[in-house]
């Protein structure tokens, strides 16, 4: 038996989606921009996908833009909006715990003459609304805050932040990176004052290489890729039809019976964190008073005296797959900014692993991980680096 608990890195594609996509590649391989029937057939899948996402997010189909994934969505939102609004102002606000797909475009924009404020977070990894209030200026054009943090699973009070932004200035744009949030929480851009929202296909049991950006229809944004003018000129390039359709079908499946699914995940998370917390020298990061104030799928645990990489490989040996910190930053063992930002002790920074579940995760998998941990901790602590 194995336990795949690295679902925040990527998820298993639902079986039915593989078949669905194969059929599209086999029978409906037309270019959605072509005039003939084959093109029209392909375009139907794009419409289908837009309808699905419009339904889930309660927005208009024309506000859905397809991209190559979360990274591109974030880049387009930040760089595209900054360029479109540069005459109004040059100030951007984000947080210290964003994914590199947001932080790196911010760095790039700083080189381009923009000014970026990076908000601190509290001990549970949440932005303090007062900090945002204070940071907002007359020339703030864009605020970007992630829905769910990928390393510790903290859930931001997005609706509250959105209200603060819009009360300050209705024209200041609000971008939300929901790569880890979509599929785990109900998101309603209109109600939460979100102007732009990034989603990735492979984090929701869909295929890799596809994502979307919700762009409210009044949002000022410029393209960052140029070419054949597809998707209203905002994202040139032939649409990835099977990927887009597959991602939409995954979202449809995920949001069917959604409440029951998340209840179940919260149940598992609560069991898992309780049991983990009982182990000697193990502390859980990013916990809130109410578990519902955190995402249902991510658990970050610091294990005293054992390096994350060793823990990871030892668990791997027992068939349990986890990641150290965040998979995106773990091939360069840089110390996690997020963990630092929530005040994790220095000696634990390199001893933190992440478990991440999905709707498919079972109690048996959690138990396998727990028994692995119980067995390994004493053995691994015996041999440590000086």
């Amino acid at each position, binding site marked *: 038996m194995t336990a795949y608990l690295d679902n925040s890195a990527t998820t298993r594609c639902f079986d039915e989606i593989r078949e669905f996509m194969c059929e599209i590649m086999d029978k409906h391989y037309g270019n959605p921009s072509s005039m003939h029937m084959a093109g029209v057939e392909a375009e139907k899948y794009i419409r289908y996908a837009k309808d699905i996402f419009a339904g889930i997010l309660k927005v208009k189909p024309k506000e859905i833009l397809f991209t190559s994934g979360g990274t591109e969505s974030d880049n387009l939102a930040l760089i595209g909006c900054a360029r479109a609004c540069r005459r109004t102002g040059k100030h951007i606000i984000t947080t210290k715990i964003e994914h590199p797909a947001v932080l790196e475009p911010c760095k790039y924009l700083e080189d381009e003459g923009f000014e970026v404020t990076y908000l601190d977070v509290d001990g549970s990894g949440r932005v303090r609304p007062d900090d945002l209030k204070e940071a907002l200026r007359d020339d703030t054009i864009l605020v970007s805050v992630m829905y769910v943090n990928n390393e510790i699973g903290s859930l931001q009070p997005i609706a509250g932040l959105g209200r603060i932004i819009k009360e300050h200035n209705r024209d200041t744009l609000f971008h939300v990176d929901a790569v880890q949030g979509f599929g785990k929480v109900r998101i309603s851009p209109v109600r939460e004052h979100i102007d732009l929202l990034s989603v990735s296909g492979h984090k929701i049991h869909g295929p890799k290489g596809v994502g979307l950006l919700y762009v409210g229809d009044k949002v000022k944004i410029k393209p960052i890729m140029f070419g054949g003018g597809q998707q209203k000129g905002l994202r040139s390039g032939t649409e990835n039809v099977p990927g887009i359709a597959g991602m939409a079908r995954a979202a449809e499946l995920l949001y069917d019976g959604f409440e029951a699914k998340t209840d179940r995940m919260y149940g598992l998370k609560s069991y898992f964190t309780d049991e983990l917390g009982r182990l000697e020298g193990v502390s859980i990061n990013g916990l809130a008073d109410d578990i519902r104030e955190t995402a249902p799928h991510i658990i970050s645990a610091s294990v005293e005296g054992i390096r994350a990489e060793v823990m*990871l490989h030892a668990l791997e040996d027992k068939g349990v797959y986890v990641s150290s910190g965040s998979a995106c930053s773990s091939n360069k063992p840089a110390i996690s900014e997020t963990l630092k930002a929530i005040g994790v002790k220095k000696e634990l920074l390199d001893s933190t692993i992440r478990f991440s579940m999905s709707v498919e995760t079972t109690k048996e998998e959690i138990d396998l991980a727990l028994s692995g941990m119980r067995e390994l901790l004493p053995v691994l602590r015996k041999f440590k680096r*000086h």
Partner: protein
Amino acid sequence: MNYTSFLIKYAEIAIKGKNRYMFEDALVRQINFALKKVQGEFSVGKTQGRVNIECLSDYDYDEVVSALSCVFGITGICPVVHVEDEGFDRLAEDVIKYIDEEYPDKNRTFKVNCRRARKNYPMDSQEVNMEMGSRILDAWPEMKVDVHDPDILLTIEIRDDKIYIYSKIIPGPGGMPVGTGGKAMLLLSGGIDSPVAGYMIAKRGVKLEAVYFHAPPYTSERAKQKVVDLARYISKYAGSIRLHVINFTDIQLEIYEKCPHDELTIIMRRYMMRIAEHLAKENGCLSLVTGESLGQVASQTMQSLAATNEVCTMPVFRPLIGFDKNEIIKISEKIDTYETSILPYEDCCTIFVAKHPVTKPNVNIIKRSETNLSETIDELFSKAVETDEVIVVS
């Protein structure tokens, strides 16, 4: 320019007396091996004390040169143009055309060097040199003759069937053809130094096997893959390599538990050397090769080297012993291993390293510490050797 053949120059092989044919055969074999991965058909042969590569089909010039640049034993690669013998006037035209294409800037000095294999050619070598020189000067008055140190040494070789024209020599990697110098066991870690050490030894004609010490879960699958990739880069020069992967975890943990922590690295390295020597003997290798460089780290001081060396009877070659890190990096960049070497995966040498390891170990003290292992180590040793997983890399 369309070259029809390549003339291969080699230096050291030529002085090997009666063994010479062995060296030449090895060179031909290695050239054939290198050209196998190149698109096109080639015929490699020995003629008149030289190795010749005839191009039998279309080929990509750059691809051929880069493949040959990895064959040890080659000191120079001369791309050759063949022409038919249709009289001296026609030959002069061909030569002038050759110079025009090969040297767009004519402001150079030159010398004509004729060799006649076919002695019944109507002119002798001296006459060809002089007459061809004056034809070239007629065509491009800006060129000058310099018989002592010419920019262009134009060779015209008159053979039975054809006339060869060449002037360029692309430097080869030097050294000796792999397979002429016995076989050695390389201790390959995944760092910057050991692949370079392997390359340097292969350059002297040595065929390589390699051993990597894997320590799961402390070192990852990716660290192992990295070592396989490094072996692949070396094999571009050294021919196919048998890489032995040994599971070293249990020995390492045993040392950790039973021996003083500041001696860990030294004792661990002593066991690595013992295992490497054991594998070397089993696989017909006559020496060990390591990437150690004197004084680079605590385990590479003279005292430490003496302490690790003490467990082997086989010669241990350390081709980088006198190199600075920067010099080693330069070679690793040349042979393309640098980028792989610096991938940040932990290797078995660093996982339990002490904060202050001994830098001047005393062999007797180390030996005494090792007696703590006496009850278990033989079994762990043979168990480790049993884990030998051989990956053939080429």
